[in-house]
């Protein structure tokens, strides 16, 4: 049902080395999730127009207000220009040469439960290691029955395939569903919060998303509730020439807590694919959200053919006092990454944290960082960014720390470390700091280093291959960020770090 492509480079086998071992290692280097699911799809016609916006809205069975909201965004978008301030080089994107809506035909009538979902779709997620059965855990982790369960919303191209543990979450008052369902079932919440953090006018890509977003996840945690399990959304782009425009909205009411994970993969394609998502987090008084991403979109091949163009707007609004948000991201995929998960620290004593690992290998380009907007008094933020560049890749950290006049006695600490592997890649750090009061403190530390030959030799003299040695040293470099991830993700991220850097030395 799926064609698996694994390119094995020609290898010279020395005596005494098991051929199988070499092939295993080599196949790790190939993007593991590059296969495609062969499934009948319904596409909206290529290109973007008011008709397409109307079509998406009607496919989702949306109310009039949302259609108007989309159309207003679309009209605004027509007059906007694609931003080019980032350190990214890519050919002009033809927005008319994309599909904006693609859905598996079997999803035309929405299945009522996971049992009714097309087996091909379920098999896809199984192969990706994403559990859509409710007893399951993320792959490779053993835990006693009943512990550390993760609820999953699986998004396949433009639609949500299914969400697990809904009933159990509902008992706790937690709403976890696709955003298209939320529009129908919880219109008051969606209408109140949608676009309240990232307005439809925010930026070129967010405005585009507002016009054409097809699906995504919606989470509401009621006051005083600690979400009984981790929530996650798994995004899979499958269809060719199709953009993915998902929209995630998480509302964490007063005194509530949720940890949310996001994962993404896509098949290997020769052409670039556009991904322009919006994530909005609304965090009220004393509430806390942890949002972790392991982004593993197809990065393109060594020459830079294919790969996802990832233009994402993620923002958290700590709207009331003592609200807390922690963004953790591991960015290993995409040909282009343009992403700045931000924190608006509006409530007094609110806190924002940003932990990031960005790896760029081969021809990948990443321009990523965060914005910490301090508006409330005694607000605190912390940024830990680890950028790793290999091959011919360019990796830029771009971050803004802004202390507004009323954000008195606020603090920021930024640590920005870059690691270079080889001599053809680049690391760039672009911090913007604005302080408009006299009682706040901003600290910024930055380092750039190369993977040390002595470290690699030391590891190899203990029996590790060069690849293992690099992975170990790099994982050490990233440790502070890996530690910020939930355990299951930390393990996945560690092996992902190793895989992303295959072939980067020697």
């Amino acid at each position, binding site marked *: 049902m799926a064609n698996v492509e694994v390119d094995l480079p020609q290898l010279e086998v020395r005596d005494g080395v098991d051929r199988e071992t070499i092939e295993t290692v080599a196949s790790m280097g190939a993007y593991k999730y590059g296969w495609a699911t062969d499934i009948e799809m319904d596409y909206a016609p290529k290109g973007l127009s008011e008709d397409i916006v109307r079509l998406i809205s009607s496919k989702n069975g949306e109310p009039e207000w949302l259609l108007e909201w989309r159309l207003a965004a679309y009209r605004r978008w027509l007059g906007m220009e694609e931003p080019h301030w980032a350190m990214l080089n890519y050919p002009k994107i033809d927005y008319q040469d994309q599909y904006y809506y693609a859905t598996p035909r079997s999803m035309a009538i929405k299945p009522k439960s996971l049992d009714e979902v097309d087996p091909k779709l379920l098999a896809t997620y199984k192969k990706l290691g994403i559990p859509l059965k409710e007893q399951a855990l993320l792959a490779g982790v053993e835990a006693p029955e009943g512990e550390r369960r993760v609820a999953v919303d699986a998004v396949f191209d433009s639609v949500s395939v299914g969400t697990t543990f809904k009933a159990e979450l509902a008992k706790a008052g937690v709403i976890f569903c696709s955003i298209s369902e939320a529009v129908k079932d919880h219109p008051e919440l969606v209408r109140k919060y949608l676009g309240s953090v990232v307005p439809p006018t925010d930026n070129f890509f967010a405005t585009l998303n507002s016009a054409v977003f097809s699906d995504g996840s919606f989470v509401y945690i009621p006051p005083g509730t600690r979400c009984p399990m981790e929530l996650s959304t798994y995004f899979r782009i499958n269809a060719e020439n199709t953009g993915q425009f998902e929209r995630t909205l998480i509302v964490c009411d007063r005194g509530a807590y949720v940890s949310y994970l996001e994962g993404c993969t896509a098949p290997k394609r020769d052409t670039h694919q556009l991904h322009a998502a919006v994530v909005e987090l609304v965090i009220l008084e004393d509430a806390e959200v942890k949002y972790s991403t392991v982004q593993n979109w197809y990065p393109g091949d060594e020459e830079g053919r294919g790969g996802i163009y990832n233009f994402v707007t993620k923002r958290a609004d700590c709207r009331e006092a003592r609200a807390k948000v922690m963004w953790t991201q591991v960015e290993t995929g995409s040909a282009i990454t343009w992403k700045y998960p931000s924190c608006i620290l509006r409530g007094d004593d609110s806190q924002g944290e940003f932990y990031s690992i960005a790896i760029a290998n081969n021809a990948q380009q990443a321009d990523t960082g965060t914005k910490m907007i301090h508006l409330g008094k005694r607000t605190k933020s912390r940024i830990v960014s680890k950028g790793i560049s290999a091959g011919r890749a360019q990796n830029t950290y771009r971050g803004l720390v802004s202390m507004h006049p009323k954000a008195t006695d606020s603090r920021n600490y930024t640590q920005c470390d870059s690691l270079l592997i080889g001599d053809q890649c680049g690391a760039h750090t672009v911090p913007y700091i604005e302080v408009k009061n006299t009682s706040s403190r901003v600290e910024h530390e930055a380092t750039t280093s190369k993977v040390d030959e002595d470290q690699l030799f030391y*590891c190899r003299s203990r*029996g590790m291959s060069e690849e*293992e040695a690099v992975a170990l040293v790099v994982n050490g470099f990233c440790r502070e960020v890996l530690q910020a991830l939930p355990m299951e993700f930390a393990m996945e991220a560690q092996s992902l770090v190793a895989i992303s850097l295959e072939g980067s030395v020697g």
Partner: protein
Amino acid sequence: MLEIKNLHVKLEEEDKQILKGVTLSIGAGEVHAIMGPNGSGKSTLSYVLSGRDGYTVTDGSATLDGADLLEMDPELRAAQGLFLAFQYPVEIPGVGNMTFLRTALNAQRKTRGEPEISAGDFLKLVREKAKNLKIDAEMLKRPVNVGFSGGEKKRNEILQMAMLEPKMCILDETDSGLDVDAMKLVSEGVNALRSAGRSFLVITHYQRLLDHIKPDVVHIMAAGRIIKTGGPELALEVENNGYADLLAEVK
């Protein structure tokens, strides 16, 4: 076990000949010491044997149990049972000592076609070996060699040796930077590993380490050659008279 024949080595970048025909044969279970003044090529010999970049072998050979060492990548040499205790152990920030040990052990096992060691068995093993070297749990958790004292670094090298169970151990100036107590601890660690199937090549400036680790054979190295070979008494001779007499003798 280890056979080195007429080994000639030069620095890759400077075109400078460092080893000018080293011949050495270490049998199973034997402990050999190499002594010599600074710049005689002792450390170069240890690096060339373990496969460090930057050296070119221009002539000669080195085999371990008949296998050509010089053709192998460093990790393969390690898997074949060669171990170098570094004079300056390298720091690896962020990588826990335990993680490092386990990764190394499993990498070697994988190369040899053996199954990986389970987390439980590994933990038991490392605790037992660490205890003998007075390495506490806290030191096992700390990043590899980061913030370790000189003595801790050397003990850590011996711990790695104990865990990896090599058959040919090279100790490169393991005594440098050690106080008397630390030297005793390290030597005890080494002596505990001595066995009929395991050989040692101990590189040192000073005789005092050899009071603790008693060698079977002592070689004196100077200007890239072994100029004299004898029993343990040769080390004492150097201790008392220095290298000058020996060097003069050769000239």
